[in-house]
């Protein structure tokens, strides 16, 4: 362990203060007994209780969760397939164009993606609701998945697939039994990325949703416009808590895995 210089301590403190003070304030005020957000009136958990009785919020949370799970799953399947073809497909006609095009939605302003989806849904006469939000989220998160997966595929040793084929596996079996298990960590992080993007999204969901379906970010946004309520603070604190738990357990799991691998390798070295 190296000791930090005073300058480093100061910059570290400043940086983290900048990042976390807003969230800290939000969490503190979620335990405020007063209805007024800016006045502290003692500790209370009543807003959490209120939240659980608020049908609208619960509905919105349920919609958001369903949309996120379904859209990130579809996006992962499609994105992985696209990445596989673009990295592995050899030099077929238009490949450069296709691989450029798959990244385009990443830089496209969300408003434009949302608007074009809205026009499409109206054009084909699709009723806006959960289905259209799922479709919209799949559309934009799929490119993120394919970026993550294709970067893993590029460093993947091609001869492993060849060995599988050589041993009599069909191309699909080679993918299922060799490629997929090895790139699984990238596929899973692609799924997690798509999931958080979907949880997060406000702009595209606003375009794609109809009166029958409201996501949590949309609900929060619309109620904040009527004034910040302590209930929103409580909801946001819960979200922060969930994310924190998720991040910590993911990093613990990966640390554990690498530690175990290291131990196995050492054990192997000792016995041979």
């Amino acid at each position: 362990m190296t000791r930090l210089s005073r300058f480093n301590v100061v910059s570290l403190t400043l940086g983290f203060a900048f990042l976390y003070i807003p969230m800290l304030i939000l969490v503190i005020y979620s335990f405020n007994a007063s209805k007024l957000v800016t006045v502290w009136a003692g500790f209370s958990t009543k807003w959490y209780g209120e939240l659980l009785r608020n049908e609208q919020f619960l509905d919105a949370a349920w919609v958001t969760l369903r949309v996120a799970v379904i859209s990130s799953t579809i996006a992962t399947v499609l994105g992985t397939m696209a990445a596989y073809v673009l990295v592995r497909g050899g030099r077929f006609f238009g490949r450069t164009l296709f691989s450029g095009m798959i990244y385009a939605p990443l830089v496209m302003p969300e408003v434009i993606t949302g608007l074009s989806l809205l026009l499409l849904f109206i054009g084909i006469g699709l009723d806006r609701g959960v289905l259209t939000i799922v479709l919209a989220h799949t559309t934009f998160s799929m490119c993120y998945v394919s970026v993550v997966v294709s970067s893993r595929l590029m460093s993947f040793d091609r001869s492993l697939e060849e060995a599988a084929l050589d041993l009599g596996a069909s191309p699909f079996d080679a993918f299922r039994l060799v490629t997929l298990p090895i790139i699984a960590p990238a596929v899973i992080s692609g799924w997690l990325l798509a999931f958080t993007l979907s949880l997060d999204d406000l702009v595209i969901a606003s375009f794609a949703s109809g009166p029958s379906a409201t996501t949590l970010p949309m609900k929060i946004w619309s109620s904040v416009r009527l004034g910040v309520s302590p209930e929103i603070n409580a909801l946001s604190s819960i979200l922060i808590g969930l994310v924190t738990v998720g991040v910590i357990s993911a990093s613990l799991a990966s640390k554990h895995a690498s530690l175990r691998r290291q131990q196995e390798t050492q054990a192997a070295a000792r016995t041979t």
Partner: protein
Amino acid sequence: MRAAHFFWDASLNTPVFAPWADPDAKPLIRFQNVTKSFGDFTAIDDLTLDIFEREFFALLGPSGCGKTTMMRMLAGFEEPTQGRIELAGRDIAAVPPNKRAVNMMFQSYALFPHLSVWENIAFGLRREGKDKAAIAARVEDMLKLTRLQKFARRKPHQISGGQRQRVALARSLAKAPKLLLLDEPLGALDAKLREDTQFELMDIQEKTGTTFVIVTHDQEEAMTVASRIAVMDEGKIMQVDTPDRIYEVPNSVYVADFIGDVNILDGTLTANGENSFALHYAPDQAPITARSDRPFTDGQSAHLAIRPEKVAIHKEKPEGVDNLLSGEVLDIAYLGNLSTYHVRLPGGQVVKAQIANTRRLSRRDITWEDKVWISWTFTAGVLLDQ
């Protein structure tokens, strides 16, 4: 041990295994004017080659000469740019790798990192849909053969380099294919295990009649196991022949130089009898006489290739030898069982003579800067035109 390959072939009614000498024999593999280019780089250049069933065929050549590329074309991972490849008489261009009765051991091993040693070996067997007990029995056999029983449950990253190589070998042997391609199968093994495995491979071949194509950088290994050797250079085959002929009658200076140690003397030829030529290698020296079945014209420049162990070295001038040259000992390399004397001729050429050390070191009488005589017989060298 070479005798292992010589069996009684009833159809030929001879005790020799030499299908390449039989004009009616059908090759298992036939490369016909195969060219393989990567962009504007030609890795295999108009190559024609027949390999017969039950052969143990060795590919030998410097790094980058196209050995792996040839194997990859046989396994189906590369398509020839031109020409055709036949397996058992049929063009295999349209057959995908997983439908070819060919297994390959990769130079990089290509072990599946997420599967245990056991599962790696079982992978190909499972694809055949064999029943569990048969698979388990076969995997156990392979583990025993490659002495990996203790490591069956380990993952590839938990075993040593040599063990990985054995897993790759076991995995490719497991399916007992008609044709087995081994890309440097024994490079990472220690001498003892390598020798044992060579015998095992020859034994497997005896039992199963599998055809082996093996890439190796080890000439001794090629000499030990191969029925025929192909020496390659820059995508071309320089010579294909049995190990003894490759060694004794190379067809070019390149092959002579690539296999084993050799002395090359350059000069011009004049005929001095039937199948006999005089090589004028230095202006003020008597020419060397050598026998050659290959015709040469008078005045043609040529090279005499002669192996160091065929050159005798003498302290006193000997009588009645075919070729006698004088020189001075430049260097002596002591190799334990052998010693190599580097002898400088008056013209500046250096000829190596190799002598078996049948006496103890202290009793040998030739040392540095001694004037010596070297000699070899009329038939000991080979005359080469290129």
